[in-house]
């Protein structure tokens, strides 16, 4: 039996770090000063998360502007374009523009190593999960100016992301968290998703954590059976009704319940979260309690208040603290 509290996607970037980053990008702060302050802030956040009883963190932390940034910057054939709305949020991402054949170059590995080094140095008891955008969502949220079809692009992205995921696993990631929020929309192109996901998963030996958010997954649940999914992350905030169906569906995966609302400042109650975990623990061997998505949409102080509740809810179940 394994019950843990985990992060998903990332933490809000503190305002002072935002200021620091823009100064660094404008060349007004040197590399050394920048990295030393960044490391200090990262350690502070990691310590706090650990103190709250959250045991799995992510390599993205507050380092990424958006889900695609490191990959769009590193992969050959991809550039970052204009600002587009990220799903239905008042939050914008730079749309990846596909301009040539995609070739893998290490993208998020340095972030993984940075966070891992800090965790070890500080002697923290934290496991680090590596975040990547899923090839299906990446394809549909990009502007394809090169490949003849979405399918071709999705497979090439899966190839490159698979290579990245393998490197992350070799560097020590227990899980690779694959973001596919577009699975929650109606009209999923199931074949496109499946082919790309299979291509990606064939390259990875680390655990695969398929993360979905902002809607229900029920309409594609049966299609997921047979894919290599070690943990399935579902949104229990925006789509609470789907939980019953998911709890009754045993495909051998672990379940990550996204029960803390990362788009609202109202802080959840420990008791309610604990009940969810208990319910899931009756059906699943591995249960993770998480925010329903990356926490970029709320102020950082509120995010930490929520993580505290997350940790408390899990501790109560594991064995009275």
């Amino acid at each position: 039996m394994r019950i843990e509290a985990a992060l998903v996607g990332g933490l809000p970037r503190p305002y002072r770090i935002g200021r620091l980053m823009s100064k660094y990008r404008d060349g007004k702060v040197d590399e050394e000063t920048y990295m030393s302050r960044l490391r200090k802030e990262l350690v502070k956040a990691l310590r706090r998360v650990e103190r709250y009883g959250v045991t799995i963190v992510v390599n993205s932390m507050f380092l990424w502007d958006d889900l695609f940034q490191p990959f769009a910057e590193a992969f050959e054939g991809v550039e970052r374009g204009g600002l587009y709305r990220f799903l239905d949020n008042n939050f914008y991402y730079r749309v990846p523009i596909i301009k040539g054949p995609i070739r893998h170059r290490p993208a998020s590995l340095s972030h993984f190593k940075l966070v891992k080094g800090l965790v070890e140095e500080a002697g923290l008891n934290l496991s680090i999960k590596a975040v990547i955008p899923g090839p299906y969502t990446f394809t549909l949220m990009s502007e394809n100016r090169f490949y003849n079809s979405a399918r071709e692009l999705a497979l090439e992205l899966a190839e490159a992301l698979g290579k990245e995921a393998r490197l992350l696993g070799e560097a020590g990631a227990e899980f690779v968290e694959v973001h596919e929020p577009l699975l929650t929309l109606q009209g999923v192109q199931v074949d496109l998703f499946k082919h790309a996901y299979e291509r990606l998963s064939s390259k990875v030996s680390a655990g695969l954590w398929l993360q979905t958010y902002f809607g229900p997954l029920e309409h594609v649940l049966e299609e997921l059976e047979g894919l290599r999914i070690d943990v399935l992350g579902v949104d229990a905030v925006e789509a609470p009704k789907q939980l019953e169906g998911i709890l009754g569906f045993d495909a051998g995966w672990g379940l990550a319940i996204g029960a803390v609302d990362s788009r609202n400042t109202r802080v959840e109650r420990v008791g309610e979260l604990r009940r969810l975990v208990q319910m899931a623990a009756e059906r699943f061997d591995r249960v993770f309690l998480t925010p329903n998505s990356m926490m970029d949409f709320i102020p950082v102080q509120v995010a930490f208040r929520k993580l505290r509740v997350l940790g408390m809810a899990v501790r109560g179940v594991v064995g009275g603290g």
Partner: protein
Amino acid sequence: MDELRLPVLPTTVIGSYPRPRWLREIIRLWRAGRVKEKHLREAFDDAVVAVVRDQEEAGVDIPSDGEQRRDEMVEYFAERIEGFRFYGPVRVWGNAYYRKPAVVGPLKYKGAIVVEEFDFLRRVSYSPVVKVTITGPYTIADWSFNEYYSSKEELAFELARIINRELKALEEAGASYIQIDEPALPTHPDEVEWAVMAVNEALRGVNVKLGMHICYGDYWRIAPYFEELRVSQFALEFANRGFKDLGIAEAIPEDKELGFGVIDVHSRRVESVEEVAAALRKILKILPPQRIYVNPDCGLKLLPRRIAKRKMEVMVKATKIVRGELKGVEGPVLRVP
């Protein structure tokens, strides 16, 4: 009530205008506790005089106060309505943040929000008509966290009641042209229907000229509601989208006007007079001149002040050229108290 005839193709602004550098400095000092509140107020007043003067020199027919007192269009209202709380900044993209408010209790109208702004603007304006802008209930709801009301819909209707009181206070104070800003309106297609009802609730019983500003969204989601929205003008951004989507103008009912966005506020390149004139000639093929106002795409506040002013000059020059081609056509009439 007097009737005032405006020139054909009246020129105006959407609302915000860059703050003078010295004002930003005084705000910074005030935040650090080094400038008194009353001196900050005096600085705001002086800034309004300065930006009204910019608009006068550029030849804009209907000026605004440049929203000099407002840091941000939702924040400003949330700070002045009871029931809101600010937890801290939230990132919107890259390293850009805003203070997203949270609704933590029942909302209450604490008294006039922008009436004083209007009073001051009217006193210092060169024009008998000025534009007052007010953020609409749906956009305030969409850009806030809702911790208190059972749904976003309930929150939006509560805000509509508050905005309605403010609009009536503005009418009472003598405002003749008010613009409701609802940039969030097209964002969530499944909410548009009740969002429109909430906006209409806010506009109920207000008897002045009402416009609505929407930008950077899919106007076609709103077009089915152009008729029922209780405004007589839609001020829309077009320059940024390269004057595509002009067909939307045909969806505007015949008794309503278009505020035609001809200046890109996200680019520092100053448009040429000829390209703006060409855009005006293009829209005149779709709508009669009496139903067109001319404005920039959106608020100008993110531009350097010098460039904002040059862009206004270009807008006015181009409009005058096209006016010359419309010899004998009368402009729209506005009721002024």
